[in-house]
């Protein structure tokens, strides 16, 4: 799967309250949630996103609450993938389980806001088309790849039960 989009950059420790504020947790629809993505820390963010764009953030992305509304909000506002040096435990699970593509890249410093990236997910390769650079990331372990290939945890379980 190839993802190509424009970069939006964020810092370290972007928490789930940043991604989707708790006052919107009485909603469950991804599109509705997406309209308020990053509202507390970047009120103009949603307006700047073109579907297919990519978030590049600092370490511990998605820390805080277990709310799956966070990866849903990212998907809902059109974000196609997230790249960060590390992801918080529950966000990591949620992204795998619902099929939000993400990659762990130790050094994100050479990527700038507005850069155009092309991600080859299965190869774990990121091309920075703006800067003519290539970054390689480690492939997911086999167990996680199976969930990803099945299209998320619920399909994975279904396939193995049938």
């Amino acid at each position, binding site marked *: 799967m190839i993802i190509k989009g424009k970069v939006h950059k964020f810092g370290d*420790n972007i*928490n789930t*309250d*940043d991604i989707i*504020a*708790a*006052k919107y*947790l*009485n*909603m*469950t629809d991804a599109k509705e949630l997406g309209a308020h993505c990053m*509202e*507390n*820390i970047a009120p103009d963010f949603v307006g700047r996103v073109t579907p297919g764009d990519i978030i590049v953030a600092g*370490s*511990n992305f998605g*820390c*805080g*609450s*277990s*709310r*799956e*509304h966070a990866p849903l909000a990212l998907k809902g506002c059109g974000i196609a993938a997230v790249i960060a040096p*590390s992801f*918080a*435990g*529950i966000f*990591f*699970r*949620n992204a795998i*389980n*619902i099929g939000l593509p993400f990659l762990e890249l130790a050094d994100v410093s050479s990527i700038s806001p507005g850069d155009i990236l092309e991600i080859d997910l299965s190869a774990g390769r990121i091309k920075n088309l703006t800067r003519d650079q290539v970054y390689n990331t480690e492939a997911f*372990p086999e*167990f*996680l790849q199976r*969930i990803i290939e099945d299209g*998320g*945890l*619920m399909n994975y*379980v*279904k396939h193995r*039960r049938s």
Partner: protein
Amino acid sequence: MGYTIAEKILKAHSAKADIHPGEYIEAKIDLALGNDITAPLAIDEFAKSGTRKVFDRNKIVLVPDHFAPAKDLRSANQCKVLAEFAGQQKIKNYFEIGCMGIEHALLPELGLVKPADLVIGADSHTCTYGALGAYATGVGSTDLARSFIDGKCWFKVPPSVKFVYKGKLNKWVGGKDLILFTIGKIGVDGALYKAMEFAGPVIERLRMDDRFSMSNMAIEAGGRAGIIAADEHTFEYVRESLKNQGRKVTSRDIAYWRSVFSDKDAVYDKVYEWDISGLEPQVACPHLPSNTKPVSKLKDVKVDQVVIGSCTNGRLSDLRQAARILKGKKAKPGLKLIVIPATQKIYLEAVQEGLAEIFVKAGGVFSTPTCGPCLGGHMGILTEGEIAIATTNRNFIGRMGSPKSFVYLSNPAVAAASSLTGRITHPQEVI
């Protein structure tokens, strides 16, 4: 090579003869928890899967606590989804308001969690039950939905990190201060994807309520679990709590629970050892739980609101501590004091002991159990420019309301003392 507590519990619940940190496993869980925020998504996914019956109706717990009593129409709908699902599936452990409590205070209180259990909850503070010597961890709604189907969950076996606390705790210093101190030392990702294990003479002397506060905030350092080995304190607590499930603790139980402690040759990623003698009450400043300072360094910080409650500090001993400071006194005029007991049982005990009267006479609000203001839900939202000191667990931007408000985190005694002066205050200053 020996195992840590986390490894022993995960291994016992998987089909594996041996497990190692970093490995992915599937394991059978003892209990799965959801609330009014996370369970509706799970229930929807479960319905879409076409499965008709949950794997075990006695191993699922549903607690509407975040936006309950329903704060608005949408929240009422979410709560109704839980009630209907519980009815259809005959789930016994669904708690309507009136018998509801904040989930992480309620489950231990009712004896739904015991040492060596493997518990998942679609709520990040599920790690609270680590205080009982269980492996309890926060997951997402899809994980919860999957567990409804087959009672299983996938885990990446976390490496363990040990925290050893030595010395003697000062007066007004407890579990909340120890965990804030710890997060301050290692940072909000200091235990990222690790199982934290709290140990040492200070922990051995710590009361259960303080242990719950500590384990509760393991997630604020990125920990997948915050485990304290079960000991006599734990057994005493569980002997009482399991009565609610009509279950007696046997000598076989105790023997098994005792076998689930870390082996002498267990391997830790890292071991921290601190002498905490002389530690002052700790306060986490905006906007991260790791931004901690001793209370005496913050005495010029004015506060508009004080919140005492939450899954971190809404237990009876927390309320007693606050009441000791507020007895016969008045909160500073104009300051908003909100006290929220974590469960109906705690609420009733607070009424019977006269604590509720102390809070009301101090000019405070004494609320029905709810997560409410902790996550900016209801019952005390901050507007632009307002500052709160709260016994809750997170102080992220906008956590309690406006993105231009500020939250400081402390223990209940510091919060109560601050309500008297209108600024962040060491309890010894007002007692």
